[in-house]
């Protein structure tokens, strides 16, 4: 901790999020590239063939504006695209269509909590660009004799969200990305999958003496493919930089890649060899005018966002701030929770299950809630079984895990009901006696030949046994005793 007191950590994040519209940013090719054969989702435009021209995907612009609005940004009434020029085989035109000095939006913020403390990180800008293709090397890139180019991803709309250097720890950085991811999910930008690259994050990390207003020499970290990687990479970098500074050394401004297996960052490129991207306005695309009316319309189209949902859970459902934050951190989580409640489950009990056993199992398997076969109705039924005393809490935990492991949760749920059934005549006899004693009129009716009365008596028996009586045995015993 000595390190932390000697230097203040300064982190700014650049997050890239694919905008999963149906078609690409500047052509009609599908964006559904993850499972498509290489280079099958391409056309003259996204292949950068001579003479092909881009046409702006309106939906992608709208989605970017919606995201910017969710991040409290100002939407530019006039915005344009620019060319960012550099050579690389995954960039078919030799330039990326991006935005330089007139992005779609600026000056927003994102709020979150870390360790019970409220934090706010400024958003410098949100802009729109196109994704690059992918290169496949045989083994390590340095040794590979050749590389294969797949341009299915080239031209997929990509949103860049540039954050201010307002983050002060790896914890804050991780939390920021998690909250940002939740917002993107809520708006329907993408699923927030970091491993597949739907969501990517670069971190600018620097240190400075506490109280200093100036920023220290920054290092950009790339290639962090999970929340855990973001956290570890920043922590590693903080230690690395502070050791250099503590030993009287100087940092160099550079780009470093995170090696997850080795758990370290490795120098990739120094500032001296940095690109001059030669940005200039994209002459193939006229600038865009965004009217106040269209912004208002897009603002209205926004769903309830994580922060509002969280506040509602605290205020209306009585959840703790911590629980409410966790449940709303992923849209699928919160949707699962809401549906479970809607089916009748108690809000706190549902939250406990989702954040407790369910999360524990999901985390252990690195799964998302939507990857399992458990549906809200299964959890609601399980909670109902506990509530009615049919199964114990301990048994419910076992049942839940069995449901989670199974491809179909129904049998485990039914088995839970069955395993606690009362079928023994001795035990059932007591219930039958009590029912007959408390319902003399119905007993008389049944004796008079009214079958309907027997159904009522069975129902009373079930109720008395809290649903655990074996209905067939119960009926048999009732018929026997009454007659």
């Amino acid at each position: 901790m000595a390190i932390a007191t000697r230097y203040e950590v300064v982190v700014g994040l650049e997050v890239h999020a694919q905008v999963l519209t149906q078609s690409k940013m500047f052509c009609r090719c599908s964006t559904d590239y993850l499972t498509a054969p290489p280079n099958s989702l391409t056309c003259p435009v996204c292949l950068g063939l001579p003479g092909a021209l881009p046409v702006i995907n309106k939906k992608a612009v709208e989605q970017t504006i919606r995201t910017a609005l969710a991040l409290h940004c100002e939407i530019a009434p006039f915005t344009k695209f620019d060319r960012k020029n550099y050579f690389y085989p995954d960039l078919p035109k030799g330039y990326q269509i991006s935005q330089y000095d007139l992005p779609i939006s600026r000056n927003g913020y994102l709020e979150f909590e870390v360790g019970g403390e409220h934090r706010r990180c400024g958003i410098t800008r949100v802009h729109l660009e196109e994704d690059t293709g992918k290169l496949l090397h045989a083994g390590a890139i340095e040794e590979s004799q050749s590389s294969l180019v797949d341009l299915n991803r080239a031209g997929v709309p990509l949103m860049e969200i540039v954050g201010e250097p307002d983050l002060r720890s790896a914890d804050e950085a991780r939390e920021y990305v998690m909250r940002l991811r939740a917002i993107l999910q809520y708006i329907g930008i993408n699923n927030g999958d970091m491993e597949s690259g739907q969501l990517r994050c670069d971190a600018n990390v620097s240190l400075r003496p506490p109280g200093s207003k100036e920023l220290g020499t920054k290092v950009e970290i790339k290639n962090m493919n999970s929340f855990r990687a973001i956290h570890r990479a920043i922590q590693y970098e903080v230690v690395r930089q502070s050791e250099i500074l503590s030993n009287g050394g100087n940092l160099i401004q550079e780009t470093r890649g995170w090696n997850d297996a080795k758990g370290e960052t490795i120098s990739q490129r120094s500032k001296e060899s940095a690109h001059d991207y030669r940005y200039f306005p994209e002459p193939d695309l006229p600038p865009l005018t965004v009217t106040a009316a269209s912004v208002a319309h897009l603002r209205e189209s926004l769903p309830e966002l994580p922060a509002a949902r969280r506040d509602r859970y605290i205020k209306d459902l009585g959840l703790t701030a911590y629980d409410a934050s966790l449940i709303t951190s992923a849209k699928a989580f919160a949707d699962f929770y809401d549906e479970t409640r809607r089916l009748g489950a108690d809000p706190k009990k549902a939250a406990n299950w989702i954040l407790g056993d369910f999360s524990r199992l999901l985390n252990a398997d690195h799964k998302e809630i939507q990857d399992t076969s458990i549906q809200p109705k299964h959890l609601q039924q399980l909670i109902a079984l506990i509530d009615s005393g049919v199964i114990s809490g301990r048994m419910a935990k076992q049942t839940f895990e069995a449901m989670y492991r199974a491809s179909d949760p129904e049998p485990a749920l039914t088995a839970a009901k069955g395993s606690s059934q009362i079928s023994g005549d001795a035990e059932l006899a007591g219930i039958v006696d009590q029912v007959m004693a408390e319902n003399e009129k119905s007993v008389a009716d049944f004796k008079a030949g009214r079958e309907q009365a027997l159904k009522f008596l069975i129902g009373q028996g079930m109720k008395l046994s809290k649903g655990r009586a074996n209905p067939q045995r119960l009926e048999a015993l009732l018929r026997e005793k009454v007659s």
Partner: protein
Amino acid sequence: MKHFQRTIRDLHQLLLDREISSVELTESVLGQIDAVGERTKAYLLVTRELALRQAKAADERLRAKRDVKPLTGIPIALKDVLCVKDVVSTAGSKILKGFTPPYSATVVDRLESEGAVFLGKTNCDEFAMGSSNENSGYWPVHNPWGLDRVPGGSSGGSAAAVASGEAIAALGSDTGGSIRQPAALTGTVGMKPTYGRVSRYGLIAFASSLDQIGPMTRDVVDAALLLQSIAGHDPRDSTSSQEPVPDYLSGLQRGVKGMRLGVPKEYFVAGMEPAVEQAINDAIRLLEQQGAIIQEVSLPHSDVALPAYYIIAPAEASSNLARYDGVRYGYQAEGAKNLIEEYMLTRQQGFGAEVKRRIMLGTYALSSGYYDAYYLQAQKVRTLIIDDFRRAFEKVDALLGATSPTVAFPLGAKTQDPVAMYLNDIITIPANLGNVCGISVPCGLADGLPIGLQIIAPGFREETMLQVAFAFEAAADFRKLQSPLMRAAA
């Protein structure tokens, strides 16, 4: 008169009247290509089979009187910067040698749907960069009016083909004068429509904010006909205009009586050949005799148009040409040891000297630290030029001047001096920067070499420009002038 010597309009009538068939006409033009092609070198590729196939289809259409359009059955040449599906399209560059696009340019699609016949791909300066056609990656073109002379550029092949009878009409592209200047030097009509009037989709880009496709023809009516079929919005080109396309033929014969025509004093540039100046003054007087009101106007920033152009166009080109890296298509150098070497060798070997010069100029102009001083400054100059035209067109309906300060110069005369070469376009460049339209029509000969009169009209007022051009053409009657190569065949 041979078929190949006629105009689109005459041939259309003959085709309609079944006097000739498209196949006969196409064979006539192909025959002229066989006869003089080795001398002009106008074509990089003659698509003989395609042309005859299309001619047969056009004859079917004519026979059935089904969907017959003014261009049905008319043999047309396409500048090599235009992509034609399944036809090698190289933009005159070795770096695209053998490149066969899987799609056609929108203008090509439009001509095809009218039933036009494609003769082939005409030679041009590499990536349309040049004013003499000597920058072709393959071979220079020779002017049908004097084979030791350049045809102008960059659409020199298209111009030479139309002037020699190797095509009835052609499409060219004009970024700084590349249609109008070769038209002037070959005694043909060449029009640069307003930027946005014609879709650029499938036009291999030189400078995206300036490039415009346009017709190159024997006379003004043909230019109007050809423009009519290629103009209009294209959803595939976001810079193409939604402005409605008027009927370019209906107003052609209205004459110039009472029209106000301006003569920019700046367009009589230093170094203008006296014979050219004389011919232009004669042309102005002729229009005055037709009833036009002539007045001198000023376009005060004309002198900075050329330097601004040589910042903006190379800047855009440096980016547009980045895609030719040998990775996906076109020329790929052998023997590279790594990726960077692959890029360097491919581009060193694939591009010609002028293209490399402009890539370097443009890269420099866009570089960090120089952008404000060059590119941004040039864009400001462009705004001044737009304002110049706007102010001038408050006073007059159209502007008159020379197209080129000189007649066709000898091959090799300016190849060692890029700046002297750039000066060829000094009077054509402002129209590209100023978002207006321009046309060159023949206005005389000097020592047997053609001179062009340039008529410039406001943006999207092509009909005004054509009206003046038609009136001049009718009064001057230079329309009947034919190049020696064309005459010889008659």
